[in-house]
């Protein structure tokens, strides 16, 4: 057991593993090979060495991994899995099952581009394609945030009875080593007590979970799911504040920086936000009125916050490392829909860039700001960095 907090240089993958260890997860089920990451490799070592009192169930597919998680969570176990790209896509059916059955499973998804052609590099389309499955989605920027979001994920999930997907960029976070504080178990236990499930299956008293719901009741169950998502906004903020008190780090729904008097705003998510921050700081040093908004929580979508933050600004650039084929960048689409009810909307331009791990540099962000400044209207998509 980790008795004293210590800061170590570890990768994002391993930060997730430590988050799971500290959350005292009881069942881990995962498909062990590509596109799997070192997240579960380290967890399997924790379990094998006895460092972690959990059952580690390896399965033949991600679909089965999620099915096993659902089984474990149905009897009240704290349950975790990790996957990536094609593996997440294969889980799709079971993702609906987990949320519909109100099981507070937490998963780490390493953003990797979907095949074909094969790619193991970062791209958010895999997780964003699961936006309607009823999972909360947290896009983290640092390895520390990854570890923290696992612990927070269980806390919020178990409160509102919805599953959480913690999303990390492949390589940019997953394989990058940086200092991460690994907390002492005592403090984590204080924040995250053992899970006591309000609904759970008991072998001696058979009940049906997810049985047939006729048209007389199905609708209401869906409304309840949506209400749970709405409650989650509040829960994320409240638990975030509690977490900050104990651990000194606060995470909300969105993160805004350099926003005072900002006329132009960069909106993005995930690891790209760090690169954007460095660029925005440069531009601020040059005296330009540019701000940054990082969308941390994608589901439930923070439309109220975005209206407050972006209302009254002149121009907004949404940077998407993802693409909804036949439409455009997914964060772009969501930001626009959030702002639509406002009478005075900023000009919102969607930039699609960095797909499949294409490097995005601070210079790119600065150039995007220049590009935004010139625009008077928004085309459907601005492709950034495509070799024509």
């Amino acid at each position, binding site marked *: 057991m980790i008795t004293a907090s210590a800061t170590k*240089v570890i990768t994002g993958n391993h930060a997730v593993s430590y988050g799971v260890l500290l959350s005292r997860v009881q069942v881990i089920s995962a498909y062990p090979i590509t596109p799997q990451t070192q997240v579960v490799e380290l967890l399997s070592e924790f379990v094998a060495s006895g460092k972690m009192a959990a059952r580690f169930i390896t399965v033949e597919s991600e679909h089965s991994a999620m099915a096993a998680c659902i089984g474990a969570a149905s009897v009240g176990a704290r349950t975790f899995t990790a996957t990536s790209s094609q593996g997440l896509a294969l889980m799709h059916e079971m993702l609906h099952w987990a949320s519909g059955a109100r099981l507070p499973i937490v998963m780490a998804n390493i953003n990797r581009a979907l095949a074909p052609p094969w790619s193991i590099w970062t791209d958010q389309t895999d997780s964003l394609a699961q936006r309607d499955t009823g999972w909360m989605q947290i896009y983290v920027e640092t390895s520390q945030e990854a570890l923290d979001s696992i612990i927070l994920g269980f806390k919020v999930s178990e409160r509102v009875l919805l599953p959480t997907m913690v999303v990390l960029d492949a390589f940019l976070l997953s394989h990058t080593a940086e200092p991460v504080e690994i907390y002492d178990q005592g403090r984590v236990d204080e924040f995250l007590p053992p899970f006591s499930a309000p609904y759970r299956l008991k072998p001696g008293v058979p009940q049906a979970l997810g049985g047939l719901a006729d048209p007389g009741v199905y609708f209401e169950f869906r409304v309840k799911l949506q209400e749970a998502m709405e409650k989650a906004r509040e829960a994320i903020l409240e638990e975030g504040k509690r977490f900050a008190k104990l651990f000194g780090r606060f995470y909300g729904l969105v993160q805004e920086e350099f926003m005072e008097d900002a006329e132009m705003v960069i909106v993005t998510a995930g690891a790209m936000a760090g690169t954007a921050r460095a660029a925005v700081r440069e531009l601020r040093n040059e005296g330009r009125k540019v701000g940054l908004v990082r969308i941390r929580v994608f589901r439930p979508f923070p439309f109220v916050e975005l209206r407050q933050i972006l209302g009254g600004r002149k121009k907004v650039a949404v940077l998407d490392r993802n693409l909804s084929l036949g439409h455009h960048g997914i964060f772009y689409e969501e930001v626009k829909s959030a702002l639509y009810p406002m009478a005075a909307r900023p000009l919102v331009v969607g930039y699609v860039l960095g797909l499949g791990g294409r*490097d995005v*540099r601070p210079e790119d962000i600065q150039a995007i700001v220049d590009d935004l400044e010139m625009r008077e209207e928004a085309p459907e998509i601005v492709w950034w960095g495509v070799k024509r």
Partner: protein
Amino acid sequence: MIEIRIHGRGGQGAVVASKILADAAFREGHSVQTFPQFGVERRGAPVAAFVRIADPDEPLWIRCHVTTPHIVIVLDATLLETAGILEGLRDGGIVLVNSPQPPDALAIPSKYQVATVDASAIALKHKLGTRTQPIVNTAILGAFVKVTRLVRLESVLEAIRENVPVDPEGNVRAAEEAFATVLSSARAAA
């Protein structure tokens, strides 16, 4: 912020070297970030790893490749013949090469400071890796300390002990020997 790029071949330990270096700098309070060139590693294939080291109060926000390094470390001198090894290296930057030859013998432009150390021989002497494939990553870090003075030798040795699972003391001795034997050209005029 100092940016470092390490070139090697799969199996030489470039990624572990970057991790040790970052860990050593972190032990001295620096902000650090390290990552491999994102790809699918194969034994013998050229690989690269990156390290960023910044002042303690300077957060490392950016997450993109190192394209304009201050320092390039080359674990296999034959890589110098391939394109791109010195690409983007800033003028006055440092090139540290694993080579038995003196710095002047390498065909490296004079705008760079060149240092060489026979890390392969040192690794063999300390029985690191195999005869055909010595693991040179820890030895080269000893030389790195002497040439750059970016971190202290003790920090690197501590980081080696923390990050090398097999024969850490052999690796420590290799780093110490490389520290003592590295040869450096005069600092290039800035």
